[in-house]
């Protein structure tokens, strides 16, 4: 695969949320509003980039049998360092992104990409993979959040939308709404792919 393909596969074909179905816990937790979805997407992409680069650079010296604990140590260290640096040098960024960082620690997309991609590919490919997967993660969150915020609160990016905000269905911003939208979106994606294959 070329660099471009590594970048693009995460957007749709191997989308981490809709296809690989990793990182669902943080994804469903924060996809109740578009602002949170974008924040989480950016924070996760950044961490993914860092962890992919480090894991890719270390892939030749890490003993195969104990690679998972080592990746976990690397990722946890990286996330903690980022968290501290943001809190110290950019309090305003920390105020808006700070709540997502503890959620990233439990985001298995990060470990998933470290294990299945970065540990087998060079740094350049891994960077592209991280950017693509990060973007795919963000796109998926935005898609889920779009429906949840619109239907559950009658708003988009915090701005009230006429008609929808007269009597919003609160269940959509709660956990069940997350699962419902998520399931319907996967079904839609499958349907589109099935149609594409038939042609």
């Amino acid at each position, binding site marked *: 695969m070329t660099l471009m393909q590594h970048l693009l596969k995460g957007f749709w074909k191997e989308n981490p949320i809709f296809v690989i179905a990793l990182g669902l816990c943080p994804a469903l*937790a*924060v996809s*109740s*509003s578009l602002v*949170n979805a974008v924040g989480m997407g950016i924070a996760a992409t950044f961490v993914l980039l860092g962890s992919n680069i480090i894991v890719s650079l270390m892939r030749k010296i*890490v*003993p195969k*049998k*104990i690679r998972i*604990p*080592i990746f976990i*140590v*690397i990722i*946890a*260290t990286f996330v*903690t*360092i980022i968290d*501290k*640096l943001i*809190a*110290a*040098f950019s*309090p305003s960024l920390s105020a808006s992104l700070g*709540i*997502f960082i*503890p*959620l990233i620690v439990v985001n298995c997309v990060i470990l998933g990409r470290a294990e299945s991609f970065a540990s087998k590919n060079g740094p350049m490919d891994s960077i592209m993979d991280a950017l693509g997967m990060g973007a795919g993660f963000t796109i998926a969150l935005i898609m889920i959040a779009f429906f949840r915020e619109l239907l559950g609160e009658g708003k988009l990016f915090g701005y009230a939308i006429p008609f929808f905000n007269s009597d919003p269905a*609160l269940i959509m*911003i*709660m956990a069940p709404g997350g699962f419902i939208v998520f399931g319907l979106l996967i079904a839609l994606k499958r349907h589109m792919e099935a149609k594409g294959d038939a042609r």
Partner: protein
Amino acid sequence: MKDMIKMGLFLFVVAAVAGVLLAITEDITAPKIAANKKALLEQARKEVLPVASKFSQNEHKTDDKANAVSFSAGFTESGEMAGVVLNVYPKGYAGPIEMVVGLDPQGKITGVKILSQKETPGLGTKLSDPVFMEPFKKLLSSKEKPVFMVKQDGGDVDAITAATISSRAFCAGIRNSLDLYNLIKPQLSSLTPPQALPASTTGGIK
């Protein structure tokens, strides 16, 4: 066997490097984070007790050391007692909610601000949004003695939909601050404004 020792050593080295890196980061960032927090607290004090321009750091001594209350008293430019600012930490949905509450000398709440919280993003975090804060402020100004409980529990506070636990915690924090206020009330009249010390040099509340 030899393989096992080699792997153990490798893991040890990785963990040691990670530990060193974390220690260095902590060393560099800890004072800055503390300073940021202090600045935030000072700003919050001014927000919840707008009439005060000077703050002192006080402690209410009790026989029982564990129950000592630390608070800061606010004074106007002319040195008049303007009220107190209290920190309370009610238990929220996912950890303590750090709240700053300002009260005037009559014990009426002048302002509330949330410094930090670990509530669910998008639900409980709305505590610090205008959606929740504006109706709460209205309640403070419209009712003489509001009952600080959520409406489901028979109080006057509108809970956030889908975040009743967070809303309850907020109310508990308010009630706690009123209790603390009554505790320190007898001491208030004897307090004097800090001597020429700007608010920034008095110690922060931890």
